[in-house]
């Protein structure tokens, strides 16, 4: 990919991911478990892995968490630590699965693994932050909701990538 085009695509992805990150914090989710989120920003992470490769996908994730927290007002607080930890852990796992198990898992499966890892990491970080191991009981409840949301974001990314116009060179 040409250098300028890579820069433009990166900037677009970071902008979209940050916007979704902020939007998602404002969305009320009607479930009895607090802390459940749709993981919309994960769509962009998946697209970044497909379009640009793992290195740029990690850049997009880091920039997204920084900007999203800055807009949301939680920069460098505990919520930021949890967002960053979850985002990094899930992006590395998803990249690993994408590279080494291509064809075994579809994009929805990759996203599902990412969502599960994201939740587990976040709860673990929260347990460390408040010095309370009992918080880990929360993981199964979050996992139950991670399954539909993970599948949803994976399928959304899949459709998005399938409909991306080839003439603008989104597929390399």
């Amino acid at each position, binding site marked *: 990919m040409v250098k300028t085009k890579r820069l433009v695509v990166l900037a677009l992805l970071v902008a979209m991911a940050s916007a979704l990150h902020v939007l998602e914090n404002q969305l009320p989710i009607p479930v009895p478990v*607090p802390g459940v989120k749709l993981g919309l920003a994960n769509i962009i992470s998946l697209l970044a892995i497909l379009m640009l490769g793992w290195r740029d996908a990690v850049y997009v994730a880091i920039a997204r968490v920084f900007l999203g927290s800055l807009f949301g007002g939680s920069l460098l607080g505990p919520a930021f630590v949890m967002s960053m930890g979850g985002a990094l852990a899930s992006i590395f796992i998803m990249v690993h699965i994408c590279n080494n198990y291509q064809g075994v898992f579809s994009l929805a*499966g990759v996203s599902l693994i990412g969502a599960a890892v994201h939740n587990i990491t976040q709860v673990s970080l929260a347990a460390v932050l408040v010095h309370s191991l009992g918080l880990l009981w929360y993981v199964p409840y979050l996992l139950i909701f991670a399954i539909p949301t993970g599948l949803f974001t994976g399928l959304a990314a899949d459709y998005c990538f399938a409909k991306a116009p080839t003439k603008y060179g989104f597929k390399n």
Partner: protein
Amino acid sequence: MLTKADKWLVVVLVTLALVGIGLNIYYISEQSSQAQTVVISVDGQITKTFPLRQGYVGEFRIDGHNGFNVVEYKDGRVHMKESDCPDQICVQSGWISTPPQQIVCLPYRVVIKVVSDNPADVDDIVR
């Protein structure tokens, strides 16, 4: 669309989550018959403990480094009545009454925990 591995993944995750929830519910029902105490800690340090019983009613305020939490207890249950934290997850957690339930206010590092008075490793004592 979904590959075979995806479907297995869903099955495995659902099973894990359900087993976890089952264990949690079992653990709660095991401990709910005993007398309970509420332990409140800020930054990992225990700041207040009080028994949770029917008829005990009241509320108090915790002032942290940058905000406040109001804890209310009533009819053997306890909840976070109010807080000025940004996410309000502690307030939305609602009432808790049995171990090992807990309410966490992550921004202010406040944990409200319900614990059993008796150690759980003794099944019963007969005299």
